[in-house]
C-alpha cells in the first residue's frame, strides 16, 4: 500500500486538491456536519447584515424616544401584541435598549472572538510546536515543559489569572483565551512534525538542498494541517463559550458592548422577573457554539481515514 503510494505519488498540488474534495464530499454526507454548516452560514449572514436586520441601534436607550419602560416584556404583533405598540421581539433590557437588536449585533462580536482567538492560538502554537519538533533537544524541552505547566492549570482559571495581570476588557480576554489555547496546538503540531520529518519525501527535499524553514513551512506543515483544522473548529466553540463566561463575570467585554455574556451577566439578577433577558442571549451562545461543535465533529470524521472504511462497510 505504502510502496505503491510512494511510487505513484502524483505532484503535491493535485493530491492535496483531491484530498480537499474528498474531505468536503465526506463532510457533507453527514447530517451533523450539514446542520453545523447551515447554522454557521446563517450566523455569518446575520453578522454581515446585522444593521439591516436589527430594527434599533444596539446601544441606544429608547426611554426618551418611545413610550417604553425598562425591562419591558417582549411585544410581538403576531402573538397578539397591540399593533399600535412598537414591536420588540425579545423585550427591552435594563437600559431600555432593544434586546433583539443587541442579540443580533452580538453575533458579530462572538464570531470575531472565536476566529481571532483561535487564529492567534494556531499561529503561536504552530510556531512553537514546529520549532520544538523540528529543533529537538533542549529547545524542544524548554518549549514543551512550559506548555505542560500551562496545561496543568484548568484553562478557565488560567484565563482568569491572565486577566488579573493584564486587566479587564474584551481585548485582554481575547489574549487570555488565545494563550490558554496555544499549548493544545503546539502539542498537535509538534507531534505531526515529529512523525512527518522522518518520512522519505522530507529527506528527499533535504537532499535537494532545501533550507530548514523552507522544509518546515512548505513540506511539513501543510501535511500537519488536517488535525489543526479539526482542533481549530472545536477550539472556536470552546473559545466562544469561555469568552462569554468571562464577560458574564464582568472580566471580558464591558458595557455597553452588545456581547451575549455581558448581556446575560447584567440581567442575571432579573431572571425571576424578566427571564427573557437571560434566555435569548444564552440561547444565542448555545446555538453558535453548537454550530462549531457539529462542524468540528464532522470534519474529524471526514478526515479520519479509519472511519471512512467503516462507513463503506456499512
Amino acid at each position, binding site marked *: 500500500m505504502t510502496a505503491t503510494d510512494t511510487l505513484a505519488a502524483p505532484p503535491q498540488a493535485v493530491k492535496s486538491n483531491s484530498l480537499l474534495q474528498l474531505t468536503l464530499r465526506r463532510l457533507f454526507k453527514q447530517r451533523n456536519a450539514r446542520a453545523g454548516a447551515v447554522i454557521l452560514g446563517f450566523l455569518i449572514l446575520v453578522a454581515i447584515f446585522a444593521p439591516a436586520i436589527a430594527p434599533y441601534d444596539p446601544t441606544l436607550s429608547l426611554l426618551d424616544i418611545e413610550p417604553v419602560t425598562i425591562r419591558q416584556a417582549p411585544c410581538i404583533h403576531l402573538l397578539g401584541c397591540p399593533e399600535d405598540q412598537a414591536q420588540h421581539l425579545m423585550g427591552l433590557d435594563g437600559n431600555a435598549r432593544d434586546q433583539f437588536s443587541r442579540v443580533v449585533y452580538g453575533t458579530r462580536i462572538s464570531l470575531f472572538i472565536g476566529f481571532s482567538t483561535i487564529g492567534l492560538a494556531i499561529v503561536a502554537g504552530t510556531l512553537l510546536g514546529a520549532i520544538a519538533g523540528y529543533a529537538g533537544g533542549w529547545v524542544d524541552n524548554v518549549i514543551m515543559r512550559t506548555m505542560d505547566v500551562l496545561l*496543568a492549570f484548568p484553562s*478557565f482559571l488560567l484565563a482568569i489569572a491572565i486577566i488579573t495581570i493584564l*486587566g479587564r476588557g474584551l481585548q485582554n480576554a481575547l489574549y487570555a483565551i488565545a494563550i490558554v489555547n496555544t499549548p493544545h496546538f503546539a502539542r498537535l503540531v509538534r507531534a505531526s512534525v515529529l512523525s512527518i520529518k522522518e518520512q522519505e519525501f522530507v529527506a528527499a527535499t533535504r537532499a535537494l538542498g532545501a533550507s530548514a524553514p523552507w522544509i518546515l513551512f512548505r513540506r511539513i506543515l501543510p501535511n500537519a494541517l488536517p488535525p489543526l483544522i479539526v482542533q481549530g473548529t472545536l477550539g472556536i466553540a470552546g473559545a466562544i463559550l469561555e469568552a462569554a*463566561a468571562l464577560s458574564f463575570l464582568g472580566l471580558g467585554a464591558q458595557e455597553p458592548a452588545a456581547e451575549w455574556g455581558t448581556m446575560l451577566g447584567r440581567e*442575571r439578577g432579573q431572571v*425571576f422577573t424578566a*427571564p427573557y433577558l437571560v434566555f435569548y442571549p444564552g440561547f444565542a451562545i448555545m446555538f453558535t457554539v453548537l454550530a462549531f461543535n457539529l462542524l468540528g465533529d464532522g470534519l474529524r470524521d471526514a478526515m479520519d481515514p479509519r472511519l471512512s472504511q467503516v462507513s463503506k462497510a456499512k
Partner: protein
Amino acid sequence: MTQYILRRLLLSIPVLFGILIATFAIARLIPGDPCTAALGERATQAACDAYNLRMGLDEPIYVQLGIYMRDVLTGNLGDSIRFSRPVFTIIIEKLPVTLELGLAALTLAILVGVPAGILSAVRRNSKVDVATMVAANIGVSMPVYWLGLMLAYLFAVLLRDTPFWLPPSGRLTAGLSSIPFYRAWGLPISDGTFGFPIFEFLSNLYILNSIITLNFKVLFDTIKHLILPAVALSTIPMSIIARITRSSMLEVLGQDYIRTARAKGLRERLVVLRHGLRNALLPIITIVGLQVGTLFAGAVLTESIFSLSGVGRSLFDAITGRDYPVIQGFTVVIAVGYVIVNLAADISYAFADPRIKLD
C-alpha cells in the same frame, strides 16, 4: 506496576515546581505594589519599608521565590488581605462546598453519561442513538450559568407550590444548621486542637457530616439545595462522557473477541458489559480525569449563580477585591489538585488495562 506508578509520580514533580513558579510569577506580575495592596493606598514609606522587611520583599527575587516555595510546602499560604485570616483556614472552609458540588455533578455525569453512551453504541443509528447524540451535542454547547439560571427559574418560580419546587440558592434553608459531628458527639475538639483543620474540613462536607450524625433533616435539605447546581454543572461532563463512551464502545464492539463471545452463546448483556465495557474503559477514565478542569471552571460560575460560598466564588471575589494572597493560595491548591487527579487517572489505567505494566 509499582515502577510505572513511581515513574509517573516523579514526572509530575517538575510540573508541580512549574506551577509554583507560575503562581509566584502571577503574584509579582499583577500591577500595583504589594505593600499598598496590603496596607492601603495611603501607607507611608516607613510603614511600607517595615512591611517589605517583614514579608521578605526586600530580598532578591530568587530568595523570595525560595521563601515562597518553603512557605507553600509547609502549608503557609499567607493571610487574606480582606479578611485578615490565614488563606489556609479559608480553603478549609470553602473547599468542602466545591468538593461536594463537584463530586455530586461528576457522579451524576457518570451515572447518566456512561449508560447513555453504551445504549447509543449498542443501538447504533437507532432513534435512541440519534436523540442521545443530539442531546449530548446541545449539552456540550450550553453555557453552564445560563442553564443554571434557567433551571432556577423553572424550579423555583414556575414550579412553585408544586412538589417539584427546588430552592434556587444557598446550601441550607434558613433556620437549619449543620452541627459538626465532633460537637454532636461531644468530642473535646476546638480551634487549636491538633488536627482541628481536618475535623473542620470533614464537618464542612454537609452530606457526610449529616449522614454520620444521623441528622436526616439536614441531609435531605442539603441534597435538595444541591440538585440544581449539580445538574447545571454536570451537563458538559455528562455529554462528553456519553460521546466518548459511545465511540469507545463502538470501536470495541467491532473487535473479533466480541464476535467470539457472541458466537459461544454468551448473553448480550454479558458481552456488552464484561467483554465490551471493560475494554472500552480506558478512554472513559481519561476523559473523566480531564473533566475536573471543566468542573472547576463550571464551579466558579455555578457557585456564583446559586450563591454557594465555595472555592470558585471566593476566588472570583478575591480577584475582584484584589486579595492577592487568596488568589495565589487558591490557584496553587487548585492546580495541584488538578495534577493529582490527572495522576490518579493515569495510575488507574494500570488497573483497567494490565498491559500497561509492560510499558
